[in-house]
């Protein structure tokens, strides 16, 4: 068979057989529908959910939290990364905090953030930002440090001022690596927002998941997970697109 046809057909076959096995297992092994509902029950629940206003309101809240947290993380991560790359004493001074912050599982900070910033959007935004910060920051620090001396010489010869050098050399040079960090960060921001919603508050997809669990509405719980995966996919794809858009020259994008 032709290679391309195989590439289209094989994923369809694998997904269908997975769903078929799941269905058979649920019906033959006498698993309680409370523990593992069959795929068709999830599809039905999902279909009903997407027609309600409620789901989209909750989804919007989660997206706002994750995206705001992500944007804070990118702004802070890129500027701190740049400053520390340019002024090494700042990095030396900040080093103990960076190491400490990296060692703390950031999720553990979530209850503290609820305590500090309340049950509203703010605490979730900060949790999302705390999780998303490191991949952006560490990639930005590395990227801004790895400017070749010869490239700097070109800009010195051109008598470029620091602002010109930043926008014409440092930033475009760092962008592919920074955006790779951002791809990881956007997924972490989603996790941060959901964990925040688990702990406190009455909005968002994380809250909805917990609410369905308490009502033992398991197909709906699965439905929320599917929606969360979709939202994550959209955000991740968006950042990936941004990377191809901003750095089409880079080897990682595969376009010459």
């Amino acid at each position, binding site marked *: 068979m032709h290679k391309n046809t195989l590439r289209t057909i094989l994923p369809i076959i694998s997904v269908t057989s997975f769903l078929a096995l799941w269905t058979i297992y649920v019906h033959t092994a006498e698993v309680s529908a409370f523990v593992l509902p069959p795929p068709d029950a999830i599809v039905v629940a999902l279909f009903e959910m997407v027609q309600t206003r409620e789901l989209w309101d909750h989804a919007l809240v989660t997206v706002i939290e994750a995206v705001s947290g992500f944007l804070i993380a990118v702004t802070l991560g890129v500027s701190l990364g740049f400053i520390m790359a340019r002024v090494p004493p700042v990095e030396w001074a900040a080093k103990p905090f960076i190491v400490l912050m990296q060692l703390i599982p950031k999720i553990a900070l979530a209850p503290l953030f609820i305590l500090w910033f309340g049950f509203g959007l703010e605490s979730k935004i900060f949790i999302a930002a705390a999780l998303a910060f490191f991949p952006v920051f560490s990639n930005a620090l590395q990227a801004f440090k790895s400017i070749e001396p010869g490239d700097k010489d*070109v800009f010195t010869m*051109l*008598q470029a001022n620091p602002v010109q050098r930043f926008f014409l050399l440092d930033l*475009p040079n760092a962008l592919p690596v920074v955006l790779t960090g951002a791809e990881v960060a956007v997924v972490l921001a989603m996790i941060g927002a959901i964990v925040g919603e688990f702990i406190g508050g009455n909005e968002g997809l994380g809250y909805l998941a917990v609410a369905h669990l308490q009502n033992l509405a398991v197909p709906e719980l699965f439905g929320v997970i599917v929606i969360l995966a979709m939202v994550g996919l959209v955000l991740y794809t968006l950042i990936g697109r941004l990377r191809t858009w901003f750095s089409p*020259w880079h080897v990682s994008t595969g376009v010459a």
Partner: protein
Amino acid sequence: MPFDSNAMEKEVSVSGLTKIFGDGDTAVTAIANADLALVPGEFVSLLGPSGCGKTTLLRIIAGLEAPTEGAVEVRGQSIWNGKTRSTAATRPVSMMFQEPRLFPWFSVLDNVALPLRVARVDAKTRRERAARICETVGLKDFLHHRPTALSGGMRQRASLARALVTDPQVLLLDEPFGALDAMTRDSLNLELMQVCARAKVTTMLVTHSISEAAFLSDRVVVLAPRPARITDIIEMPFDRPRDLDLQQSTQFQSMVGRLRRALSEGA
């Protein structure tokens, strides 16, 4: 004497130049007490083996490396005030490096136009000027390509175009064609000579190729390592314009022989 530096205006002058890297027991003298002067429009090569400090000398003139002692003047203005480079004095100086140093986020045209962009020339004018200079170095059909899509020779053409786009008075070349194959190198050298003559730019080339130095230069400055110093300055008495056939002539061969002897005496 066409190059009597006392009688003519000096475009570049280097006096008592010394560069020492490090200090104490680990100090290395990269250049010891170098004196040199170039007249406007002259093509001078710095010829010597690796480690003779020729690139360091060029970088000090360019304002990229501070001298330990001595002075460098371009058109009467000091490049260095102590350890600080003078931006005004280095303005007429342009430099081309060993590697093309083109930026992959710009097209060939935007790379060539970069010096004008930094100098705040408006977009339309800088595109026109960059396109014109690209045409003279044979890049007309590659303006909108990315530099990564070009061959090594084409990249160095773009790099040369970028160095010339600001109409510099002094052009510093740090072994720009060293990494290219012999055939590409020959044709680029020929074009370099024509472009430099047309632009009437004073050129200083760092090279370790004897025949390249002899072919391109009005004068060849011979350097020796340990301690790095200027041992001889030899005039190349060939008429201009020159072509590749010159390299077959006995006169050329004897000059190459003379340069080789000067190099081995210094070492």
